[in-house]
């Protein structure tokens, strides 16, 4: 079972992001369970969302303590909480920023992970470019598909289209496509 934990803030579409990821896995015939961190999150307050993907029914009902992939949707949270607690050694790390890991003082964390398991993607910028709104969740989904290969990118596109019908959907898909290409390029670069 592959477990994902997403950190962001209220109003940024963190929960919708986890839900879309579970829909993408469902489209590929797999079992998936997405749930929020259950609280009265106010706009701007820290929020966590979880997603589990497996090949058989998921019965577990406890929070994700040891995620296989950690998505940091809002780096300002670095100042507020230890977002990386429980991240597995061979885990993945996806950070939404237009800076580098060193700028965010995350060099130590990245070293501990296998090469190519930690990537950055300017998801908010991509969202502003395509969707005209700072909602990076769809773009991060594209990046997640490229980073982990756990779900195919076209499942991600169908999941986004299902959640955001019409024009907004296309804009989000375009953002996800850019993010996917960016991360694939980074992956190829580290692999070479």
């Amino acid at each position, binding site marked *: 079972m592959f477990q994902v934990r997403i950190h962001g*803030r209220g109003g940024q579409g963190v929960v919708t992001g986890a839900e879309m990821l579970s829909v993408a896995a469902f489209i590929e015939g797999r079992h998936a369970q997405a749930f929020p961190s259950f609280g009265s999150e106010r706009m*701007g*307050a*820290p929020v966590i969302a979880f997603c589990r993907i497996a090949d058989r029914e998921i019965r577990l009902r406890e929070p994700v303590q040891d995620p296989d992939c950690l998505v940091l949707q809002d780096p*300002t949270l670095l100042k*507020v909480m230890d977002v990386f607690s429980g991240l597995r050694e061979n885990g993945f790390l996806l950070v939404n*920023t237009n800076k580098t890991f060193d700028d965010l003082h995350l060099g130590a964390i990245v070293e501990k992970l296998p090469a190519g398991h930690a990537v950055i993607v300017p998801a908010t910028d991509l969202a502003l470019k395509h969707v005209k709104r*700072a909602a990076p969740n769809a773009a991060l989904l594209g990046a997640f598909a490229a980073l982990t290969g756990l779900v195919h990118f076209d499942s991600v596109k169908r999941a986004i289209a299902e959640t955001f019908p019409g024009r907004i959907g296309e804009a989000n898909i375009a953002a996800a496509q850019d993010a996917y290409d960016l991360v694939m390029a980074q992956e190829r670069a580290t692999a070479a």
Partner: protein
Amino acid sequence: MDHDFAVTLDVGSSLANHTGSWRTFRPEYVHRLPPCNHACPAGEDIQGWLSLAEAGDYEGAWRALTRNNPLPAVMGRVCYHPCETACNRAGIDASVGINSVERFLGDMAIAKGWAFAPPTAKSGKKVLVVGAGPAGLSAAYHLAMLGHSPTIKEAGPAPGGMMRFGIPKYRLPRETLDAEVARIVALGVAIEYDCKVSDLRATMREGGFDAAFLAVGAHIAKRAYIPAGEAAKVLDAVQVLASMEGEDRPLLGRRVVVYGGGNTALDVARTAKRLGAEEAIIVYRRTREKMPAHDFELEEALEEGVMMKWLSTIKNVEAGSLTVEKMVLDEKGFPQPTGELETLEADSVVLALGQDVDLSLLNGVEGLKIEKGVVQVGANMMTGAAGVFAGGDMAPSERTVTVAVGHGKKAARNIDAFLRGEVYAPAPKHELASFEKLNAWYYGEAPKTVRPTLELARRSSTFEEVVAGLDESNALYEARRCLSCGNCFECDNCYGVCPDNAVIKLGPGNGFKFNYDFCKGCGVCASECPCGAIRMEPEEI
């Protein structure tokens, strides 16, 4: 306090929760450039001295004003106040009467005998200032305040330049002018009268001057070839206005024709009326819209009986009469002759076709560049010759008193740097406090106070001042109409509208500070700041 576990909580325990981390934007207190400051040719910090005046601290306001402009009483009478044109308050009801408050402060300073505080240190450097007009006086004042020793050499018998020999008394009483000049002299500025500088380099060498500021103005009347019989009485405007200062008033006769469309033409026509002329007619080749003179001055002249002959040029002048040709404006706005002629009776004709500069003193000075009759200067007001600076009407300028004062100040600052072998770097300009950055809701409606004017009868017969000043209550009322654009005036709005109690009030005069531990960056303070003194900056993630 002992109470139940978790169900009951202690006062102040929420302060452990630093909500500051929620921000994606951060409010910052900023100083933005008020449009009046931006528009003032003399670079006055108008919003600055108005905020002192509105608190009733008139001396403080006067001192803040005179840090940039030593002649507030003069400005209050002759400046065309571009500041009021730019004033944001026009977006609410009407612009702030800045000019009238400036005059009120200038007059109070004269009445109360306030003096400039002399500079603490002396540089021992000597600077030659040629010309005691507004530019020269301003430069000398600023140089003195910067600790240098300026000496003004004035060709004429008295100080003021155009202020005395160009602007009539009914606009600028001489007592006011003399009082403000005296205050500059009291600062230790030496003025030598009837002392025309003909050879600049020689004068600088003999006087041991380390630098020079030329401000001789433009006193030579522009001549136009108009065939005139020898008995015809043709004079030039500058000469007529200058002679008003002396004992023997010019004899212009019953019917006076003035040729020209600028402010000088209006001054001459209105002076002629006051000298008893039954008819004072201004002949101008174009239309009212194209006239360079300020419209409010034309209004005053028309009220006093001055008559206008639009779209006409003078063909020739005879004794007692002249012939005028009708003109028409072509599509580009230039007057074209129509061939239609008309004769007017006139005892005298005064030409007010603009003035030129007497550049004779510059002979032999190397490196200068003269273009269109004025000496070219750099941004630092320096001419092609090192150490020789110039300003006022003899340099490229709009040729107003305020611009001249501005040139004087700017030159002084550059001379000050030059004397120390450095380059003067002006402070960077703040972002303009344009109207849409304000929140006009918070300003109550309050109509502008109009300055009372002398009744018409006395205006056309005497040289008494036409426009009177404001009394204290009106001046204070007017000062308090200022919106304080772009600069905090401690109205407590940000302190009051913050949902998170994240603004710290530092007490009267000290303004406010944001408590970034708790500020969530919602932006309500920035939206509700009346004067746009808060800007939201993106938080660096």
